[in-house]
């Protein structure tokens, strides 16, 4: 039992680490392509140096993302061999497609980073567009596999084995749509708002390269804006899908204990699985019924419909509440930005606005991580939802705390190093004259 916990923790740490780099690998190329296109259109050299500054950061993040992704592809088998034995023929094709997308991203990023003087500007921009598109499609293919784990289909389950496998049906899980849209938007938001926060910091601190950082902030903020605004709607749609296909997960992330009609929505508060209550929460009567089924009087299945040992950990509720809270804060900032724009005030001259953007910079990533905790911890106790339990898929390897500690230390050092290297870049970009490599 302890081994299961170690295996799950190692997988969780690997995913929590990798997803940051994966999201940046999706978001940064899109931003770079925009500023490079602006450079080609306006011939303003600041857009060129912005593109180059961003591309250096991207190079570092992409390398870490590539190797930590490799770790994950092996860890699926190292930690959960029985899962891979059963699921390989069903989700493998999606990973094969992801392999090609990742290949394209690696190839064209190599060209993008190192061929500035070797190919024409238009071809260079085209290479960047391919990098952005392959990051986008990589995400879709990985999420197709994840969607299948949450809402599996395309097989007949007999005697504990997956038979009569239809791999094309497996690729079309009903969860694909909301997972891909929700995650892609999250990746764009998290990346762009973190970038905006760094440049907001430069502007607040005072820098001789003011207009450079202004362009950077405005581009990143405006890029994130539409995604911030649609994300709550996508999230709502995602919640309804979960209500339909994974009622246990919905009940767990709301800690909705008793099956009931006109179920209230609890905001905040502390859940207690023993007493089956939530203390100190703000109550909206019928709110949960409405959100889950678009009807204030609809019946919402509660945790009582499921055996106690199958309930996902209470952390999923807190993760869910935090994700929603962070998302709402970002919507508020987006609305503030739009208001400033309507009043024709340049965003980058508003000190208070920059301060708030600096402080809330990490919220996109925190919301993204919280969202994945909801999805994946909420998927427990199943690894293939409804068919294979995580405890039946784990490796028999004893002493799993050793690789857990080793991997955690490696990622801790790696994370610290990336931050240190990035800090030197940021400091360097404050100065009038940049030091080049």
């Amino acid at each position, binding site marked *: 039992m302890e081994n299961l916990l170690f295996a799950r923790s190692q997988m969780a740490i690997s995913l929590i680490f990798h997803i940051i780099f994966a999201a940046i690998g999706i978001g940064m190329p899109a931003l770079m392509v925009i500023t490079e296109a602006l450079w080609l259109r306006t011939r303003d050299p600041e857009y060129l140096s912005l593109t180059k500054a961003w591309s250096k950061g991207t190079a570092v993040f992409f*390398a870490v993302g590539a190797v930590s992704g490799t770790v994950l592809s092996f860890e699926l088998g190292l930690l959960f061999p029985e899962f*891979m034995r059963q699921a390989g023929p069903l989700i*493998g094709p999606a990973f094969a497609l992801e392999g090609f997308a990742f290949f394209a991203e690696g190839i064209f990023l190599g060209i993008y980073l190192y061929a500035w003087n070797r190919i024409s500007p238009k071809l260079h921009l085209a290479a960047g567009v391919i990098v952005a598109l392959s990051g986008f499609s990589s995400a879709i293919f990985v999420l197709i596999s994840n969607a299948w784990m949450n809402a599996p289909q395309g097989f007949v389950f007999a005697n504990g084995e997956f038979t009569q496998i239809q791999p094309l049906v497996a690729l079309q899980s009903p969860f694909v749509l909301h997972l891909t849209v929700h995650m892609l938007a999250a990746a764009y938001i998290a990346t762009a708002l973190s970038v905006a926060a760094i440049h907001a910091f430069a502007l607040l601190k005072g820098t001789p390269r003011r207009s450079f950082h202004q362009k950077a902030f405005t581009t990143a903020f405006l890029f994130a804006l539409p995604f911030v605004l649609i994300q709550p709607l996508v999230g709502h749609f995602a919640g309804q899908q979960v209500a339909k296909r994974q009622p246990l997960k919905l009940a767990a992330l709301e800690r909705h204990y008793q099956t009931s009609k006109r179920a209230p929505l609890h905001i905040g508060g502390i859940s207690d699985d023993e007493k089956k209550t939530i203390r100190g929460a703000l109550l909206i009567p019928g709110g949960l019924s409405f959100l889950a089924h678009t009807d204030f009087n609809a019946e919402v299945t509660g945790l009582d419909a499921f055996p106690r040992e199958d309930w996902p950990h209470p952390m999923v509720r807190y993760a869910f509440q935090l994700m929603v809270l962070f998302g709402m804060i970002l919507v508020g900032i987006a609305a503030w930005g739009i208001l400033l724009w309507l009043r024709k005030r340049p965003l980058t001259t508003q000190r208070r606005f920059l301060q708030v953007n600096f402080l809330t910079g990490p919220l996109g990533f925190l919301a993204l991580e919280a969202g994945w905790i909801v999805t994946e911890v909420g998927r427990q106790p199943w690894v293939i939802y409804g068919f294979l339990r995580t405890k039946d898929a784990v490796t028999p390897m004893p002493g799993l705390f050793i690789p857990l500690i080793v991997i955690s230390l490696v990622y801790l050092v790696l994370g610290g190093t990336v931050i240190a290297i990035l800090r030197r870049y940021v400091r360097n970009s404050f100065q009038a004259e940049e030091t080049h490599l």
Partner: protein
Amino acid sequence: MILAEAVALTVLVVLVLYTLTGGADFGGGIWDLLATGPRRVEQRRLIEQAIAPVWEANHVWLIVAIVLIFTAFPLAFSVASTALHIPLIILLIGIVMRGTAFTFRQYDLNRESRGKWSRLFAGSSVLVPLFLGICLGSLSTETIRVANTASISGFFSPWIGWFQLSVGFFTLSLFAYIAAVYLTVEAKESAIRADFVRRSYLSAISLVFTGFVTALLARSQAPHLFERLTQSWGPWFQVSGALCLFTCAWSLLRERFRFARVFAAGVAISILAGWGYAQYPYSIIPDIPLNLGTAPEATLRLLLILLAGGSAFLFPALFWLFKIFKKY
């Protein structure tokens, strides 16, 4: 069965491509570690320039191989992941350190820490081929035994053995050899080129020596492998490997470096093709033949279609990448 064999052949081709590209990048790291003499700084710079634009793309071949294996041969993947848990974890940490240290060395503005990244990059470039060889060797030594779809051989005995270690050093020599020959083409000055010609000879000797030791050990520790390599078509792979090795050496002597590069690739292809031939019809000797625990035909067919479609896009892209950065 024919579909499973087609995917197995594809895995072999992917491993060949990984050796010829990613393997050479690791070989570059080995030569970074072994850089000596008055031109060691220039040697390291040449290696860095050769690897930087392409290593991430080259690395993807390994991921493609893994994905093909777990999709088409899920039982073999699951068994190998269990029995080889420890060496695979070491391999992964090596892969993480190599990639990140190499990137940090290039992009860290703090020049003082570059020495640290350099050593880490070079050290892990030795670790990865060694453990890759150990893992592959373990598939042939009949030390991974299976009962009821799971490995029953524990977590050390499958991979700790002289044969596996020997395959590890053989892999190391092969990667170093390919890299040295490639670098004779990449070098712009004749002194550096001469350095790598010398290194090509040295690693060729090491390759022959470790190959010989591996073959000797195979006789007792990997009998199926040994038998297949010495009977019927088996010896031809050895003949072709030896011919390529000699032609490569001769080309280096005559300063036909591009020619030498082709034959160095020929050495690698002969070795891997010979290994694939000798391993047949097993994925893991002796309990898992290719047709046991294999994905259903529908998956294999879809996989091959996706591979064909993906390749139509991939190979032109790879061609462009190498055309921009590499000499023909």
